[in-house]
């Protein structure tokens, strides 16, 4: 229910160039930033474009920049992020803007493909299932990074992406690291070569923006450090 208070919201309008448009939105208990954006779209300006699907932090499609930080808007309570009674909502950084708050995620996922982020089965299918004991270091490394849902928050927070548009980014490299540790996967020689280039894992400065902002608390900085070690060992063995 509205509690009589209002929120001053600045919302990005346009594409790469544009401007912030101010809206006044009623405050409600347990209001999320996605609620605010939806209220504006339904009551004040139906032309406002943004993206969302599940509303419960599963799909990762509603990520936006809220008061300068990339976040899932569906899981971000206004009370936690509003500076006084003001809120600034912009599209995710480091991605082309389709319109208003909706970004084109294609460059983000293209880099997953460039990082060889898909499972490569062995040529000879084993006669029996692989057994991967949960306590092995490989399995634990996979567990630490596998819950990524590809929301793009880490990519938007990454200054290396900001400075080098070819950099593969934390999410793609984290995905590659989970596959490097997948004992069933047969694609590591080409995968390590793909992630060890100039725009790969060695470009990371360990600023930890990705780890700091990941809504799933995935530590992509650690995954990238793992890739650096794996690539260095492969190079020493003459495999790169």
């Amino acid at each position: 229910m509205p509690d009589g208070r209002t929120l001053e919201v600045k919302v990005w309008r346009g594409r790469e160039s544009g401007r912030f448009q101010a809206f006044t939105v009623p405050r409600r208990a347990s209001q999320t930033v996605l609620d605010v954006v939806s209220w504006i779209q339904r009551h004040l300006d139906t032309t406002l474009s943004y993206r969302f699907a599940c509303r419960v932090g599963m799909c990762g499609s509603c990520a936006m920049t809220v008061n300068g930080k990339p976040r899932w808007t569906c899981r971000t309570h206004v009370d936690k992020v509003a500076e006084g009674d003001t809120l600034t909502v912009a599209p995710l950084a480091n991605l082309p803007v389709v319109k208003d708050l909706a970004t084109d995620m294609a460059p983000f996922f293209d880099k997953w493909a460039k990082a060889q982020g898909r499972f490569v089965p062995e040529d000879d299918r084993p006669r029996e299932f692989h057994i991967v004991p949960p306590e092995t270091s490989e399995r634990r490394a996979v567990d630490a990074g596998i819950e990524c849902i590809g929301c793009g928050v880490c990519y938007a927070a990454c200054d290396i992406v900001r400075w080098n548009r070819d950099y593969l980014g934390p999410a793609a490299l984290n995905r590659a690291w989970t596959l490097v540790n997948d004992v069933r996967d047969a694609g590591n020689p080409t995968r390590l070569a793909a992630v060890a280039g100039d725009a790969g894992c060695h470009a990371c400065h360990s600023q930890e923006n990705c780890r700091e902002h990941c809504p799933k608390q995935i530590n992509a900085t650690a995954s990238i450090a793992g890739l650096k070690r794996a690539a260095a060992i492969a190079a020493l063995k003459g495999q790169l």
Partner: protein
Amino acid sequence: MIAAAHRTHRGYAAFVIHRLSGVGLAAFLPLHFLALGTALNGEAALDDFLRWTAHPLLKAAETALVVLLTAHLTGGLRLLALELLGWRDWQKTAVAMSGGVSLAAGLMFLLNLGVP
């Protein structure tokens, strides 16, 4: 369009300090060689230069240089540990330790200035 709010955490501060201290040290290195080069003109030339560096302002700058050097060293060791030894959950503590050791080195240098 985008503010820098995503940089307000300790890991990023460590990155900035490491980068700035590195640039500062790189800028100082030619001056260091220039100072050593005065010895090529004889012992007296170097001694004259060293007497000039006894000025309090230069001693303050030298203290800052010691802090920069230690900050770059400890920050670099932290990065090497992070990337070569694997992740530890006390990274923020490691950043604080790096800063603490750097400031302590600067303080020790300052205290040592009074000792003949």
